[in-house]
């Protein structure tokens, strides 16, 4: 099992560009989450999904979109990148025992 994988590891974007952060899990987990971590801060929930075809907003969803067409994949889309979206993004998943979340290694995003 690879667990939760995220690509890319690091990306620099120009203001106004768009990109998709990829997240894949091979544990057949129903629940998936996207968090952002700003420097020196804890994680804040952006979006989450309780299963294929079902997504919902977290604490800080503005400027982001998600989709969940399969159990394995949960991509995060930034449409018009802004400097405020400079952060480290973590994807996580959890299964039958929903309370245990497994995290990916993170994607560091710099918007200039």
């Amino acid at each position, binding site marked *: 099992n690879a667990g939760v994988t995220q690509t890319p590891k690091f990306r620099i974007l120009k203001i106004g560009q768009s990109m998709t952060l990829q997240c894949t899990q091979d544990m057949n987990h129903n*629940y998936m*989450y996207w968090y952002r971590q700003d420097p*020196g801060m804890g*994680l804040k*929930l952006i979006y989450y999904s309780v299963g294929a075809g079902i997504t919902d907003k977290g604490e800080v969803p503005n400027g982001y979109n998600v989709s969940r067409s399969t159990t394995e994949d949960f991509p995060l889309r930034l449409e018009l990148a802004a400097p405020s979206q400079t952060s*480290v993004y973590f994807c996580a998943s*959890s299964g039958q025992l*929903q*309370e245990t979340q497994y*995290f990916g290694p993170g994607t560091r995003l710099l918007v200039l």
Partner: protein
Amino acid sequence: AQTVTQSQPEMSVQEAETVTLSCTYDTSENNYYLFWYKQPPSRQMILVIRQEAYKQQNATENRFSVNFQKAAKSFSLKISDSQLGDTAMYFCAFMKLAGGFKTIFGAGTRLFVKA
């Protein structure tokens, strides 16, 4: 809305000694989980320990234990026999059991273990 507060931005401890990290939370929920996560310089989030709110017994995982005071809404982490590899950011987190199992994280405590 739930909040999680970690009042110690930074702490240090001598190798082999014991250190306690504090966490308080605010919620009107009765059923929830509490967690401590470790984030070393690699940035990987690692689950250290979790506590179910309905359990009175404090959770223990090897050198890590918690002091869970439900009425006081307090959830501290004790690290015994500290090791250099314990140097990391530690995050306290709260998860309610309804509404998608969303997790709220505290701002973190940076722990340095000195040789």
